């Protein structure tokens, strides 16, 4: 049985086709686009909020997209335990919508940064990461100007204590250092899970690193985790 992936499309989304391509053609699952004006997700098993610049990043990244009609159903779906992956702008939208804690601020460098980064796997038991080993380092690209994850110290402590940090930016030895942090994110955090473990937001783009022809395949482990988790469920 195929997993039905729904990829939300906002005006300004630009990684929607990448997410569709990976789930549909690389992993052979069912995938469909869902326009943001829809009010119902339909019978999807998994929701992807893709990268891009929804609403031109007006006001704040993700701030306006959060009020698109489809987001009400995404919140309902997530609160009912449905699996949701937000990549880059998708992560920003998940934070703005309250499905994930914290916020994504402007990069400390003030520059849009587009390059490969190394990520250390901090949680290898979630439905998004169970094909990875704890501490496993993967190479995935980032492309953002506002990826500087911020949350209050108590929230950061809770995220770390509860295993809700999925990935941190690291160096080749797996160390979390200032030099390995591309945007100034608190504690080097690149991706977080919600309390229930069914929502993941991450700034790096695994969908751009899931095929040998693209020169990187580490991101495929996130999609293989998802497929394995949902097929077994």
């Amino acid at each position, binding site marked *: 049985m195929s997993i039905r992936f729904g990829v939300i499309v906002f005006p300004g989304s630009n990684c929607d086709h990448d997410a569709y391509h990976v789930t549909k053609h690389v992993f052979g699952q069912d995938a469909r686009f869902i326009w943001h004006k829809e009010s119902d997700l339909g019978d999807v098993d998994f929701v992807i909020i893709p990268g891009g610049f929804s609403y031109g990043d007006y*006001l*704040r990244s993700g*701030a306006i997209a959060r*009020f698109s009609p489809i987001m009400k159903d995404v919140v309902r779906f997530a609160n009912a335990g449905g699996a949701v992956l937000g990549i880059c702008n998708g992560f920003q939208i998940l*934070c*703005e919508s309250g499905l994930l*804690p*914290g*916020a994504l*601020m*402007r990069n*400390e*460098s*003030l520059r849009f940064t587009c390059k490969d980064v190394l990520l250390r796997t901090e949680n290898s038991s979630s439905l998004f990461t169970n094909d990875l080993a704890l501490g496993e380092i993967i190479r995935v690209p980032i492309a953002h100007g506002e990826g500087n994850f*911020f*949350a*209050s110290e108590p929230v950061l402590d809770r995220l770390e204590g509860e295993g809700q940090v999925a990935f941190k930016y690291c160096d080749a030895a797996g160390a979390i250092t200032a030099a390995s942090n591309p945007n*100034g994110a608190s504690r080097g955090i690149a991706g977080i899970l919600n309390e229930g473990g069914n929502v993941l937001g991450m700034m790096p783009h695994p969908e751009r690193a899931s095929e040998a022809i693209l020169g990187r395949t580490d991101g495929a482990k996130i999609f293989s985790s998802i497929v394995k988790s949902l097929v077994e469920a």
Partner: protein
Amino acid sequence: MFKANITITLRTSILDPQGKATGHALGELGYKAVQSVRIGKYVELEIDAPTHAEAALVAKSACQDLLANSVMEDYHVEIQELVAN
């Protein structure tokens, strides 16, 4: 009719790299008296409300719901009455 002049800035506990870089540039220009710079956003709302207080409530609610992200930003609202010509 009222006008709300709203300024939104990063919370004071959060480093503002834009402000810091601009502060450095002012220092280079000789503005030694400038001790710090913080950069934010400015939003104007025209609000049809019966009283000053009610216009302020609308503006604050708009800040909380959309205009500012309370995780990282503070907002300041000033209300002025618009006098018809």
